[in-house]
Structures are given as C-alpha cells and as structure tokens.
C-alpha cells in the first residue's frame, strides 16, 4: 500500500506534464478543427455544387477512417512523404484537428440550417453581400448555437488524444504506461489516468458552459 502511494506521488509530476501535452494537443486540435470546420460548413450549406461535393468528400473521408489509421497514415506516410518533419505530438494534433474539422463542420452546418432563412434574406435586403451576411449575421448566431456540440466534441477529442500514444507522443497515456510497466503498479496508475481524463473532460465542459453563458443573447431561446 505504502509503495503504491509512493509510486503515485512520484509519478504525479511526470504524468501531469503529460497532461499539459495532452491539453495542448486537444486545444490545438479544437482550434484547427474550428478553422477547418467553419469554411467546410459554409461551403456545404451555401457553396456551388462543386464546392459542396469537395467539402462532402473531406467530411466523408475523415469520418469514415479510424483515427488510428489516420494517425499512421499521416505520421508515417503522408507527412514523411511531404518532407514534413513533425513531432509525434504535432502530428497527432494536426490529425485530430483535421478529423475534428469534419465533425465540427457537421455541428456548424446543423446550427446554420437551424437559423431562419429570413436572417439571410434580411441581410441581403440591406445590401450586404453573401460573404458579409454570413460573417456578420449567420456565423455569430450559428457559433453560439454550436457551443453545446462543441463541448461534446471536446470530450471526444480529449479521449481520442490517448491514441497519440502509439506514435510515441509523450502524453498522459504514454507516461502512465511507462510508469506502470516499470513499477508494476498497473491498476493504480491506470485508475489515476482515468481520473485525470475524467477531470479534464469535466473542466472543459464546465469552461464551455461558462462560455455559452457569457455569450448568451438575452431572451434568445432557440
């Protein structure tokens, strides 16, 4: 028992550093997914059919292939082929971000489609170009509506990030595994990792709920 506690305490700073790496990768992937997902959603809703098809193919690809396969495909395959020398963490962030972009685009698309058609009509009637109307009228509303879906997406990426372990990224899972196999304290170590993931999920969900409250429009019920 005593030994367990000692191992856990010794491992704590080491695993927490891994948590910092995990969080960096997840936050990076969320933002990358946002920057990919918004144009994808706009393209899918408002684009010419060629644009819609291209966006659809992107989404179809990243939703249809397991993340593990994507990680290997990009890290050992494409990135190498393109001469990109990314670290395992950076590669995992990019792959998670591109995948999340596909999923986030579906969240945003749903939000955009749930807005009344009259919003765009009214913007056009004031002389706004479609681009301006989308930027200043549609997206501010659609993004607000997307925060609950985003919160869900965060918890999924956080959990998927554990897969970066297989690339050798030294995140929570990798570090836990390392300590566990050295000390033979498998059960306590993996329980700790589970608790850590749980706490990170919870913190993110709480933070996003706070954001949702902060940007809420008075009286607006959708």
């Amino acid at each position, binding site marked *: 028992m005593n030994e367990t506690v000692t191992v856990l305490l010794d491992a704590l700073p080491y695993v927490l550093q891994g948590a910092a790496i995990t969080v960096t990768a997840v936050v990076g992937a969320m933002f990358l997914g946002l920057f990919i997902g918004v144009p994808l959603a706009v393209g899918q809703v408002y684009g010419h059919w060629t644009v819609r098809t291209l966006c659809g193919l992107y989404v179809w690809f990243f939703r249809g292939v397991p993340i593990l396969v994507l990680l290997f495909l990009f890290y050992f395959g494409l990135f190498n082929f393109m001469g990109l020398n990314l670290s395992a963490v950076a590669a995992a962030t990019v792959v998670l971000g591109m995948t999340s972009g596909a999923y986030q685009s579906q969240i945003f698309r749903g939000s955009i489609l749930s807005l009344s058609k009259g919003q765009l009509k*009214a*913007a056009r009637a*004031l002389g706004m170009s479609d681009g301006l109307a989308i930027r200043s009228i549609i997206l501010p*509303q659609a993004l607000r509506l997307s925060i609950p879906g985003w919160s869900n997406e965060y918890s999924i990426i956080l959990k998927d990030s554990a897969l970066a372990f297989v690339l050798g990224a030294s995140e929570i899972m990798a570090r836990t595994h390392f300590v566990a196999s050295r000390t033979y304290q498998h059960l306590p170590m993996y329980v700790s990792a589970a608790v850590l993931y749980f706490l990170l999920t919870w913190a993110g969900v709480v933070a996003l709920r706070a954001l949702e409250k902060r940007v809420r429009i008075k*009286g607006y019920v959708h």
Partner: protein
Amino acid sequence: MANMNTKTPLMRVHGISKELGGREILRSVSLDLYEGEMKVLIGPSGGGKSTLLQCMNYLLVPDRGEIELEGRRVDPRKARELCEFRQHVGMIFQDFNLFDHLTATENVSIALRKVKGMSRAQAKARAKAELDRVGLADKGHLYPAELSGGQKQRVSIARALAMDPKVMLLDEPTSALDPELVSEVLTVIRGLAQNGMTMVMATHQMGFTRSLADEVLFMQEGRIIEQGSPKDLLAEGSGTRTLDFCSQILDVEGAGA
C-alpha cells in the same frame, strides 16, 4: 398624391415571371411606381404577393422580365450591382427578421457600418435617430427577444429607413402581430406615406388601404387582375373582384371580433 402622367416612374417592373417548384407563381406582372406613391397589393393567400415583392429587390431573381430603378436596369448576375440596388430598395418582412444576436440599435447600425462604411459612432447616432423616428428611442439596448412584435416591426422599419431607400417594399407588415399591436406599426407606415416615401405594400388592412393607397393592385394566381384607385375598386356595388374579396375578409374579421 403622386403625379402620374408627367414624370417617368421611379421604379418600373416589366413583364416579371417566376417559376418556383415547377409552378408558375408570377405570370408577366408589370407595374410602374411613381415617386411618393403608395401601392397596395391585395389578394388571396398564395396569389404571388410575397413572390412579387421579393422579385422587386431581387431576393428572388425573376425568370423573365425587367426591373428598372430611376431608369437604370440592374444585372442580377453582377453581385456588386445587386448589393447596390438592394440598398435603395428597403424590405419589410411579415415576421420582422431582426438579427437575433444584435440589439435594436445594432440591428439598425450594422449595415450602416459594414455596407455604407460609416464609423461606429456615426452609425450609432443614425441608428438612434431612426429608432427615435419610430418611437423606440428608449429601446435601443434591447435584443429582439425582449421586444414585442410591434416593437420588432418598428425596429425593422428603422433598419430599412436608415439605408435611405428610394422605395420601400412591405410584405404584410402587420399580419404576424397581435391585434392590439397593429396600430402602432400602421401609424409609423402612415407617417412614411405622408412624408412622401414611395412604397408597395401587401396588406389586408382595408381601412388603411382606403385612406392611404394611391392604387390598389388585386393579385390572384400570379397576375394583377384588377388595379385602380381604392375609391373605384372598393365602391359599393362596383362589382369588382377586389370588393368581393374585401367583403369576405371583413366578414371573417367581423365574425372573429
């Protein structure tokens, strides 16, 4: 009262046709709109009033026909011309379509800033002036969800007026309102008419039409089938379709009251 004969029309709609969902919704509709004139569109639901109004500022692009504003024709395929044209033709919708994420003031000022390029301060001042004009000087900080239907419609009128339109199109602006809120909106529109705003309005408000319309256009099945002064079309015993239709809606209103 508009001077019909000596001037050229401010806006000319010529032979507009529009198909939607495989059906002909507008069948060669034409009208000339003179400066300061108020035309009222009436007719049964589904007759094409909303479609016509939306074609008139190219929210819908007609399949055939032409629209001229001050003698200039617009090419709706040119995005820049289209945006420019729409700034001159204000639109009021039945269900207001205020921007839900913006306060009343921001609803009015956003296009001033982003379309007309005014500074934030200028746009805000103009928005305040327009809200004041529709009797909402003290409501600028409220969001649409905090306003009554009548207030929302007045904000949307302020929003359109702020662009200094040459023509205003109003699509049943009081139809979505509770009865007790209708008059506050009609009062604002009456004020516009009396100040010489050129307007085309779809409405079933007959009292309003009798007192303010220069011309009534009766639309059915995508055509204007009767047009004339309210006096002529609505005279007792005139035997017009317009009169027939109006007495029906008055009966319904009377029965409901």
